[in-house]
């Protein structure tokens, strides 16, 4: 509390000046709307165009990127922006107002930039990748929704709009994962992703209701202020509410044990995987944790050890799984889960900036790696690394960009991954999670190890597939280069203690104005820790090269590192998928059998008796009541109506003056009655 207030005071003191963004911030909502406009345009006009409507998707994100970039630069140069536009939609009960709108502050600007930039690059890549594929029109329509829902999510000024975007992202991911629905496995993968996320969404919604109703406001600004001022009502629900929100984040951000959907989600087209793993979908959970950071920082500190533990398990144990995957996209998928573990661990431990910086750098190099993998898959027509090998000769651009991405992911100085991972390690050390810090260093070793394997099996040795692979078209390689540059350089944006002239650093851009985050920022590079992280990564690369390097001739020999206990465990993915099925089977089996017995002997008996009774009753009702009683009554009625009609219709002569005569006679009768009665 004291620390937070002093930081707030220090920031108010003039170190960082707040701006409001002016016209660009007031119109930033256009970014949230454009992808949905593109969606409609793609559906109605897309099929006539060359890329089946992909042009609209690219255009929408291109225009959005203008806004995102302007705001990003303003945020860098003119002081941190803090702005929000909201429109009241409804009032819930007496006090709670439901608003839609958009936020323009450091955190959301960073996400706008990320989604628009990575999204645009991936969309352009997809124009080439999906050309000639089936249902390209549908693909780009869903893809637009995917990006648009994510923008709605990160632009949300309150928890309710965030949930709307959250569900939109889940829906779009379901549609995209199941894009090739002719294959039942892909449909199942989509279902698995949707269901797993739904389980977690229950946590999100309950948590949102709990903390929102506690202070009667779902607004992030109000929640942050209440958290910093130690609001008693919010404090009462902070621990449970915080854990529930974290549970929600676990689903989208694929934390152990809810990570099981993410590797299966590789069933979708590769551009989907790239966007899903970089900027949209999986970052949503981390973003939620960052938005609610004041809650965890000020009120729900008790929840932290649990969250850090989940993150630590995720970053290490799931990273190991990448060592045994044969599908290159699954290697990258497990790697994403592992890196999400890093981010979650950092944010949970109190490293607001550290976690988000890793999210930022990771988005670029992971999108790069996925697009590179897509380029390779495009060339060899297989996802399996056993069908690859030696591709560096055939696909030089893909090879070099993939290596840059791998080194950045492994955390080799001076590429971006090194700086962000180092900051996480520093934060973990500072916050007192020393054991977790060592796990994270070990995780860095594992990361470098499996990426070396992936690079060696894909690009070195001899080509094992069929035919002659070829470099991808420019429409696909240019995006790789566009992503390789930020992957290499963006780490320099947040070197501890270094403020770049004129633009400051990442830490300053993300400081939020409503409340101070109060997280720790290292003042200088901790060379010991950096050396440990870098050493672990180099060791991983060296060891990986020794095992899978170029010397080993056949792919099978190269990929046969059989460790007795570990390998079977990893191949079965720690039996988590089996356990999930087993638990459901074991508990549901006996229940199902007993239900079956009751069904056969008890319920059937009752049903049969009821049936016989009903039958007898039915005979009586039909023969006596219906045929004679009801029918007789109905027939009688119709006879009466018929006769009355036949008599009365003679009155309708069609002679107007006769009617008038009746009318006058009636009036006279009424007048006489009136006079007599009064």
């Amino acid at each position, binding site marked *: 509390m004291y620390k937070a207030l002093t930081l707030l005071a220090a920031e108010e003191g003039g170190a960082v000046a707040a701006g409001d963004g002016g016209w660009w911030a007031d119109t930033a909502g256009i970014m949230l709307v454009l992808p949905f406009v593109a969606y409609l345009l793609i559906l109605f006009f897309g099929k006539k165009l060359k890329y089946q409507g992909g042009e609209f998707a690219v255009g929408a994100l291109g225009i959005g990127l203008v806004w995102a970039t302007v705001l990003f630069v303003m945020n860098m140069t003119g002081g941190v922006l803090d702005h929000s536009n909201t429109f009241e939609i409804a009032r819930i009960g007496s006090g709670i107002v439901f608003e839609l709108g958009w936020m323009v502050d450091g955190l959301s600007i960073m996400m706008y930039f990320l989604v628009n930039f990575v999204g645009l690059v991936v969309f352009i890549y997809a124009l080439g990748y999906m050309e000639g594929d089936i249902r390209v029109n549908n693909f780009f329509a869903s893809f637009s929704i995917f990006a648009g829902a994510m923008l709605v999510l990160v632009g949300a000024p309150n928890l309710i709009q965030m949930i709307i975007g959250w569900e939109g992202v889940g829906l779009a991911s379901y549609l995209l994962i199941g894009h090739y629905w002719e294959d039942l496995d892909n449909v199942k993968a989509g279902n698995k992703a949707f269901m797993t996320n739904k389980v977690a969404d229950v946590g999100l919604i309950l948590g949102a209701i709990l903390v929102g109703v506690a202070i009667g406001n779902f607004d992030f600004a109000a929640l942050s202020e209440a958290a910093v001022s130690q609001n008693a009502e919010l404090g009462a629900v902070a621990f449970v509410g915080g854990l529930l929100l974290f549970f929600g984040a676990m689903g989208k951000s694929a934390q152990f044990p809810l990570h099981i959907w993410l590797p299966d989600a590789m069933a979708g087209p590769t551009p989907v995987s790239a966007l899903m793993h970089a900027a949209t979908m999986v970052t949503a959970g981390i973003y939620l944790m960052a938005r609610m950071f004041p809650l965890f920082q000020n009120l729900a500190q008790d929840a932290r050890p649990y969250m850090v533990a989940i993150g630590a398990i995720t970053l290490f144990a799931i990273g190991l799984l990448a060592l045994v995957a044969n599908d290159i996209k699954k290697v990258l998928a497990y790697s994403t889960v592992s890196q999400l573990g890093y981010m979650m661990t950092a944010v949970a431990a109190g490293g607001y900036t550290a976690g988000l910086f890793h999210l930022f750098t990771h988005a670029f190099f992971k999108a790069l790696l996925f697009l590179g993998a897509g380029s390779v898959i495009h060339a060899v027509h297989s996802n399996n690394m056993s069908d690859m090998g030696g591709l560096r000769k055939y696909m030089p651009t893909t090879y070099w960009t993939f290596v840059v991405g791998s080194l950045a992911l492994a955390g080799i100085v001076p590429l971006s991954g090194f700086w962000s991972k180092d900051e996480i390690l520093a934060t973990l050390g500072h916050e007192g999670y020393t054991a977790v810090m060592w796990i994270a260093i070990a995780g860095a070793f594992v990361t470098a190890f499996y990426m070396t394997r992936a690079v060696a099996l894909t690009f070195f040795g001899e080509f094992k597939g069929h035919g002659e692979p070829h470099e991808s078209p420019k429409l696909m390689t240019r995006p790789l280069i566009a992503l390789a540059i930020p992957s290499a350089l963006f780490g320099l944006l947040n070197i501890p203690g270094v403020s770049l002239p004129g633009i400051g650093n990442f830490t300053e851009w993300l400081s939020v104005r409503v409340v101070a985050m109060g997280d720790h920022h290292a003042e200088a590079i901790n060379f010991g820790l950096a050396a440990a992280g870098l050493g672990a990564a180099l060791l991983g690369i060296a060891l990986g090269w020794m095992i899978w390097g170029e010397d080993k001739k056949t792919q099978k020999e190269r990929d046969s590192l059989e460790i007795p206990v570990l390998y079977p465990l990893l191949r079965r993915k720690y039996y988590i998928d089996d356990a999930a099925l087993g638990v459901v089977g074991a508990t549901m089996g006996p229940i199902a059998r007993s239900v079956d017995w009751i069904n056969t002997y008890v319920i059937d008996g009752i049903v049969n008796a009821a049936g016989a009774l009903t039958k007898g009753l039915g005979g009586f009702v039909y023969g006596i009541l219906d045929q004679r009683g009801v029918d007789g009554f109905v027939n009688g009625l119709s006879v009466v109506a018929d006769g009355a009609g036949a008599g009365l219709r003679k009155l309708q002569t069609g*002679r107007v003056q006769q009617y008038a005569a009746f009318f006058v006679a009636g009036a006279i009768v009424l007048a006489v009655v009136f006079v007599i009665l009064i």
Partner: protein
Amino acid sequence: MLLNQFLVLSAALFSLGVYGLLVRRNIVLILLSVELMLNAVNINLIAFESVIRSADATGQIFAIFVITVAAAEVGIGLAIVLMIFRNRRSANVDELNLMRW
């Protein structure tokens, strides 16, 4: 007070109207009879208003309403008559029996 004379005039006009409505065979004359009845009512309203002199001149305003409605009614009525005459070359109500069952 002249009220009784006005009421007698009104009653006479109304009765003439009713008589015309019932016995005339020409549609135009029937319409005229209806107008006669409406004007009888107007006379009645004005006569009572001149006695009561309510603050907001209800009787006179109501008479204006009646005149307005009567004008509209004659407009529609003559249009119908015109159409009937064009179709059947006759304005005799006894020959008009389309509206029977």
